[in-house]
């Protein structure tokens, strides 16, 4: 098996009295796609944010390429430059054009020359068929287009790992397909991804690993075949029955 990119070991996260993650452990290898499934409030989003150091953890450990992120000498900004994140609500920067949204990270975080990064950004837009919309503002794009721009915005940082937080949940059903197609494309090209999703068919198609969370507890994990066709746990079975 190839190198371990991300490893969570007994991660605990509390918000005041509310324990959102109760000792979650998982490993993600290079070129692997893992899907987090579970009801809303099961801790999927929190887990992704902890991996990105957008939240601090209250127990356990997270490491990226074998380096423990809890170490005080770790620079969170450097960590985040290697981890891309895409949000449910796109979070494009409304005051910047599409191309400037994509260039913000390379230019101001990686300190690359704008002219150098520009062609790559255009190539990324070309890939999602939005090259001719480069100079428009995000509000002029449809939800699906915005979310695809958000995905390539994080790709522009050439991350080692992509975290996706229910990226199709805020979309009109007719626009879900174009975003999932892009993600499938990325998966086939070997992008390492940790995806929180409610799209079970998509998860079954792209993931090597399915992780089922319930109330902050990792109930069951395994291959799509194991989880979707032969779930061992009652909770998993019940959840899958409800979403089908």
């Amino acid at each position, binding site marked *: 098996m190839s190198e371990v990119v991300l490893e969570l070991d007994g991660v605990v996260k509390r918000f005041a009295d509310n324990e959102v993650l109760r000792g979650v452990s998982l490993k993600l290898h290079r070129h692997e796609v893992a899907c987090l499934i579970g009801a809303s409030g099961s801790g999927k989003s929190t887990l992704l*944010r902890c991996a*990105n150091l*957008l939240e601090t953890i209250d127990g356990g450990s997270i490491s990226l390429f074998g380096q423990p992120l809890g170490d005080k000498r770790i620079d969170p*900004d*450097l960590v*985040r*430059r290697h*981890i*891309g*994140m895409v*949000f449910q*609500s796109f*979070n*494009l*920067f*409304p*005051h910047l054009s599409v191309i400037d949204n994509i260039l*913000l*990270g390379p230019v*101001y*975080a*990686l300190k690359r020359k704008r002219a150098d990064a520009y062609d790559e950004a255009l190539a990324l837009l070309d890939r999602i068929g939005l090259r001719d919309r480069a100079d428009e503002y995000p*509000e002029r794009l449809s939800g699906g287009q915005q979310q695809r721009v*958000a995905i390539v*915005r*994080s790709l522009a*940082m050439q991350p080692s790992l992509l975290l996706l937080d229910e990226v199709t949940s805020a979309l009109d059903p007719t626009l879900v397909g174009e975003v999932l197609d892009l993600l499938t494309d990325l998966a086939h090209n070997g992008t390492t991804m940790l995806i929180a999703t409610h799209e079970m068919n998509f998860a079954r198609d792209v993931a090597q690993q399915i992780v089922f969370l319930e109330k902050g507890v990792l109930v069951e994990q395994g291959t799509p075949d194991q989880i979707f066709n032969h779930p061992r746990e009652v909770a998993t079975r019940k959840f899958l029955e409800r979403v089908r």
Partner: protein
Amino acid sequence: MKLKTDVDSSDATPNLFAPRRRRLFVGKRGIAASSLSTAIVFGLIVSVLFVTPGGATVRYAFFNPHEMWVAWIGNPRIGLLAIRDGIFTNVWMFLVSEVLVLSLGISIAWIRFSQSPVFLPFRLLATLYTDILRGVPTLLVVMIVGYGLPTLNFGFLSHQSPAVYGVIALTLNYSAYVSEVIRAGIFSVPHGQLLAARSLGLTQTSTMRRVILPQAIRTVIPPLLNDFISLQKDTALVSILGAIEVTRAAQIFSATVFNESGLTVAALFFLALTIPMTRYTDRLMARDRARRLASS
């Protein structure tokens, strides 16, 4: 059982016409009605100058066209300053103050959001500053700065013209307000913007500069302009220090000629200054509202 809330099951055609008395002011008659009511209301207000016992005196003392004209152009023979010569002082005072207020206001708001432990004393200072300067009347700040700095006897700080002290005082005072406005703007930027910027690996500072502040300032432009309108008017307070600006010239006029029409001229000057800005601010706010309605 049939409830009152049930849908109308009768076959009657409902009458959709408004009652007669509410049809009175539609179309052309509406325009006539609004013109008439405007004329009556404004006429009543102006009539105060004509029906009150002291009306004639007030008309003579405040609205004497000849005296107003003299106040405007001055009269060097009797040592009367022209109000129009004071305009420049007001204008440069508020222009310079506005630039300084904006930069100081942004800096203070930024400091209050900073997280570095080294900045703790500055954060405390910024909080203290906004608390104090928002609580002290502008006139007092003008007086304290205008009389205090010269008394310090500290190099160039103590050898400036009253107008410069005025600018310092107004800047100190309005920066406190503006920093709060900008802070409100920063709070109004959705948290997702911060998350997105940080997850791209942008530092706290870059995030603030490239993502949060540009959006924050855009949303607070109308309230910011409101503060600037207020600042433009408050340049009048600097007259207390003896700066020869519009209000001071008007005061000198009334003290010399015993006619207050100069004050009216000064008031008209400030109106000419602020009304375009007020209209512009209103238009911006209306546009902002329209955009928000359109996007939801």
